C-alpha cells in the first residue's frame, strides 16, 4: 500500500516536468521573432490567375525608443508575394521574411481597384477564416492604383503608414463625416444581407508638389507621395461599381445616421453672397419604408443639431430671428442636397442599394419583399424617396452677435 503510494507520487513528480518540457513551449513565439503586419493589400499578380499580396511590416528596431541611430531608417518594410490563392501567397511570404509575419495587428485590408472590380469573392474567404485576422480590420479599396502602392502610403506626423492612414480616416469619419470606416465584420455581414450593398473605405495616392526646403534642415526625406482617405467605394455584390466623393459620402452617412461632425457652409443671407459655417453637433436618422398601392416608397427622416460657427457679415440673432430660422432652413436644404447627390449616383449610376432600403423593406414587409426582391435592381432605380430634414441651430459659439467692425471715416 505504502510502496504503491510512493510509486504514484514519484511517477507524478517525474511526469510533471517531463510533460511541461515536452510541450516544447507549443505555439511559443518570442516577440522579437515576429513581423507585425500592419496592413495587407490584395491584387492580381502579373502572372495570369495568381494573386499578389503586399504587406507592410513594422521594423521595431527602427522605431525610436531610445535606440540611437535608428531614426533615419524607415520603420517599416513593404514586401509582396504571390500564390494561386490568398492563403498560399500569404504563406509564401515566409520565403522572404526572416521573421514570422503575423496578422493580428493588421489594421487595413486593401483591395486594388482592378481586383475589386473583378470581384473580391475569391479573396474574402481567407480573411473570414484565418484566426489571426481581426474583424476590426478596415476594408479599403485603392482608387486607380494597385493595393500594393497604397499599403505603404506614408503620412506626416506618424511614422507607421498604417497608423497615419488610420488617423486620417478616423478624423475624416468623426470630424468631417466625409469618409466611411467599414470593418471587416460589417463588410462581411452586409455581403450576406439581401437588399443591402456594401461600401468600403476609399484610398488614393496623392502626389505632393516637390518641396525644396530653403533651410535644408529636414533630415528625413520629405514625403512626396501620400494618401488621401476620403470618400467611399460602392460595391454591388462582391464587385466594385464606383466611387462616392466627399459630398455623396456624407449624403450616405446622413441616411445611415452616422454623421458625427462636419461643417456645412451656407449663404448667410439669401440676397448677399456672404457665407456662414455651421458645425454639425449631432445628427440622427430614420429610414421608414412604406408600401403604397403595392409600390415601395421610402421616407428618410434626418434630424441635425448645429452650432453657428462663423458668419461673414454682422448678424445678431436677437434682432432678426427670421435670419436665424432661414439659416436653419438653408442648412436643411444643404443636407437634403447631399442626400440627393448620394441617392442619384447610387440609383442611376451604380444601381446599387448601398443605403440598405431593400433590407428595411424586408424587415417591415417580408411578404411584399419576396415579390420585390427578384426585380429589386429595377425597383430601386424607380424608388420614390422622400427626404425630410429637420434642423435646429442650438448654439452660437461664445458670442451671440458677430463682431461689428465700426467703419472709420474715410478721408
Amino acid at each position: 500500500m505504502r510502496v504503491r503510494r510512493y510509486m504514484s507520487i514519484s511517477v507524478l513528480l517525474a511526469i510533471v516536468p517531463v510533460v511541461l518540457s515536452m510541450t516544447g513551449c507549443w505555439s511559443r513565439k518570442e516577440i522579437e521573432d515576429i513581423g507585425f503586419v500592419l496592413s495587407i493589400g490584395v491584387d492580381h499578380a502579373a502572372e495570369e490567375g495568381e494573386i499578389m499580396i503586399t504587406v507592410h511590416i513594422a521594423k521595431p528596431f527602427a522605431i525610436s525608443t531610445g535606440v540611437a541611430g535608428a531614426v533615419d531608417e524607415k520603420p517599416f518594410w513593404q514586401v509582396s508575394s504571390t500564390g494561386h490563392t490568398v492563403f498560399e501567397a500569404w504563406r509564401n511570404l515566409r520565403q522572404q521574411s526572416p521573421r514570422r509575419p503575423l496578422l493580428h495587428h493588421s489594421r487595413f485590408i486593401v483591395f486594388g481597384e482592378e481586383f475589386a472590380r473583378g470581384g473580391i469573392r475569391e479573396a474574402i474567404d481567407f480573411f473570414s477564416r484565418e484566426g489571426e485576422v481581426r474583424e476590426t480590420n478596415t476594408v479599403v479599396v485603392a482608387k486607380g492604383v494597385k493595393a500594393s502602392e497604397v499599403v505603404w502610403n506614408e503620412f506626416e506626423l506618424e511614422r507607421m503608414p498604417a497608423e497615419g492612414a488610420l488617423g486620417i480616416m478616423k478624423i475624416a469619419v468623426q470630424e468631417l463625416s466625409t469618409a466611411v470606416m467599414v470593418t471587416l465584420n460589417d463588410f462581411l455581414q452586409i455581403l450576406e444581407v439581401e437588399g443591402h450593398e456594401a461600401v468600403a473605405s476609399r484610398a488614393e495616392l496623392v502626389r505632393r508638389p516637390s518641396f525644396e526646403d530653403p533651410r535644408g534642415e529636414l533630415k528625413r526625406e520629405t514625403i512626396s507621395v501620400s494618401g488621401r482617405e476620403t470618400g467611399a467605394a460602392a460595391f454591388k455584390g462582391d464587385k466594385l461599381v464606383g466611387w462616392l466623393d466627399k459630398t455623396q459620402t456624407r449624403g450616405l452617412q446622413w441616411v445611415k445616421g452616422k454623421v458625427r461632425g462636419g461643417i456645412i457652409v451656407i449663404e448667410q443671407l439669401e440676397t448677399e453672397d456672404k457665407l456662414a459655417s455651421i458645425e454639425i453637433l449631432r445628427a440622427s436618422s430614420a429610414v421608414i419604408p412604406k408600401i403604397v398601392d403595392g409600390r415601395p416608397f421610402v421616407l428618410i427622416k434626418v434630424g441635425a443639431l448645429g452650432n453657428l460657427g462663423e458668419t461673414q457679415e454682422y448678424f445678431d440673432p436677437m434682432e432678426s430671428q427670421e435670419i436665424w430660422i432661414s439659416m436653419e432652413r438653408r442648412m436643411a436644404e444643404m443636407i437634403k442636397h447631399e442626400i440627393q447627390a448620394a441617392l442619384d449616383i447610387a440609383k442611376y449610376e451604380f444601381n446599387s442599394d448601398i443605403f440598405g432600403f431593400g433590407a428595411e423593406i424586408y424587415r417591415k414587409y417580408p411578404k411584399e419583399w419576396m415579390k420585390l426582391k427578384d426585380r429589386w435592381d429595377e425597383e430601386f432605380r424607380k424608388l420614390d424617396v422622400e427626404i425630410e430634414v429637420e434642423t435646429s441651430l442650438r448654439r452660437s459659439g461664445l458670442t451671440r452677435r458677430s463682431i461689428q467692425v465700426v467703419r472709420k471715416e474715410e478721408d
Partner: protein
Amino acid sequence: MALGILSKALKRLLSRQRKDSRALGACPSSPQTLLSRKLRENEAFIRDAFGNSCDLIIREVRFGISPGIAVLVVHIDGMVDTALVSEAIIKPIGVTSELLEPERLSSAQVQDMLKNRLILLSDVKQVSDIADLFHSIAGGKCGIILDGSSVAFVCDVRGFEKRSVEEPMSEVVIRGPREGFSEVLRINTSLLRRRIKDPSFWIEEFTVGRVSRTQVAIAYIKGIANDKVVQEARDRITRIDIDSIQESGQLEEYLEDAPFSPFPTILRTERPDRVTGALFEGRIAILTDGTPFVLIAPVTFLLFLTSPEDYYERFFIASAVRLLRYASFFIALLLPALYVAVTTFHQEMLPTPLVLAIAAQREGVPFPAIFEALLMELSFEILREAAVRLPKIYGPAISIVGVLILGEAAVRAGLVSSAMIIVVALTAIASFVTPIFSLSIAVRLLRFPIILLAGTLGLFGVVFGFSVVAIHLSSLRSFGVPFLEPIAPVVASDLKDTLIRLPWWAMDTRPEFTGKSDLRRQSRGLMPRAPKPQENKISGSPGKRGST
C-alpha cells in the same frame, strides 16, 4: 492536487523520524526530587546542577541572634535586580531579625516568619520540589533555602537588561500607536493589558521547551473568544515536546493547521494594537518570551492584507488603500508571468504601439522572455536578501551597485530589456505593499512556478497556476476557520470589512466565525447626525433651522 499529494508524502516521511528522542533537560543529574533538610546538601545539589557556572551566586545570610539559622540566597547574576535582593531579602533577614532567637521557634514558625513578614516582595512562593527550585533560579528568580527545613522560597526579583518598547520595525503606520512589542513576555502582556482594562482579558501561561523553558502565553478575552479555539490552542501548545523554542516562528510551525502550505495560517505581528483588535474579534493571541512577534489565530487570508491603519484612517481612504493592496497582491503574484505569457504567446493581446515598443526593446536581447524574467527575478531576490542581511552602512553601496550599475548596465549591454526591468521593479515594489511579511514571502516564492508555467503554456499556464493557488487557499483552515472567509464561503455580514472597510459605526458585529459567542459589538444607529431642530436650545430664528 499535486500539492496535496506532495504534502502527504512529506508528512509520512517526517512522521517516521519522530521516534522519542531521549529526553534532555528537566533535572540534570539529580537523583533526588525533593529538597533535603540539610542546607549543605542542598547547596551541593545546586552547585552540582549548575556546574559551577560563573554567574551563579550563593549568598549565606544568618537569621536571628548568632549563630542563628543559615539561609542561602541563590540567584543568577545579571538576571535579578541586585539592589532589590539586598533591600528586600538580605537586609530583612540579616538585619531585622537580629534579635530573634530562631532556635526557640519551630521550623514552621521560621518559615512563616520569613515568608509572611521578612521578605518584602509581592511574589513569594514556597517550593519543595528541587526541580522547581532550579527552574525558578535559572529563570531569574531568587531562591531562599533554610537550614533544617525541606522547603524553599522563590521570589520574583527579576531584573535584566532588556530593549525598551520601540516602534515596530516591520509594520509601520503613519497614523496609530507607535509602540511595538519587545522581547520580554511580561512587557508584552502589559502592553496588551493596558489596552484592555477588564478582568475578562485572560492570559494563560505555559512553559515550552524542556531546556529553554520558554514562557508562552495564550491571551484572549473570555466571553468573546471561542472556548473551543482556546482549548485547541492549549492542546496544541502542551503537545509540543522539544528542548528549546527560540522564536514564535518555530512555535508557529507546531501550531499551524497546514504545515505544508506556502501560506501562513497564523498571523504574526509586532503591533499591540493589531493584537487587541484581533482579540476583540474573538481571536486569540499567543505570546512567546524572547521575541517581539506575537501570533494571532484563527486568521483569514484577507487579514494578511490589512493594516491596523485601515481602522484609524477615514474609511473612504482606508477602503481605497485596501483595494490598492489587493491589486498589489495580484501584481506581485502574476505580473511577470503575465508579461512572459503575453510577450511569448499572445502578442495579439497588446495594443499595436505597445507591442512594437516591447518588440523594439527586446531587439537583440539574447534570452527568451521566460529566461529573462527568471534571471531578473532571481537577481532581484539576491539583491533583496543582500540588502536585508548586510550591515546598514553597506546599504547605499548595495543600492548603487545593484540597482544603478547592474540594472542600467544590463539594459545598456542589451542583455535585458528595459520593459522587463520595469515589470520586475513593479513586481518587487508591489510585493512590499503586503503588510505582513510572511505572506509576501509566500507570494514571492509562488511567483517562480507561475512564471515557469507561463513560459511553457502561456496564459493557460498562468490561469492553471493561479487556479491551483486559489484552490489550495480555499482548502486551508486556520483553527477551524475557512481561510478565505468571508469570500469562500461567502459570509455576507463579514463583507463589511474586506474589499472595502465600512465606517466604524456601520460595523455592528464581530466576524461570524470567530466572534460567534458574542456577536454584537456596538449598539445600532451610532452614525453621527446633526441634532434635530427641536432639541436645539438656541432661541432665535427657528424657521431657517428647520430646513435640515
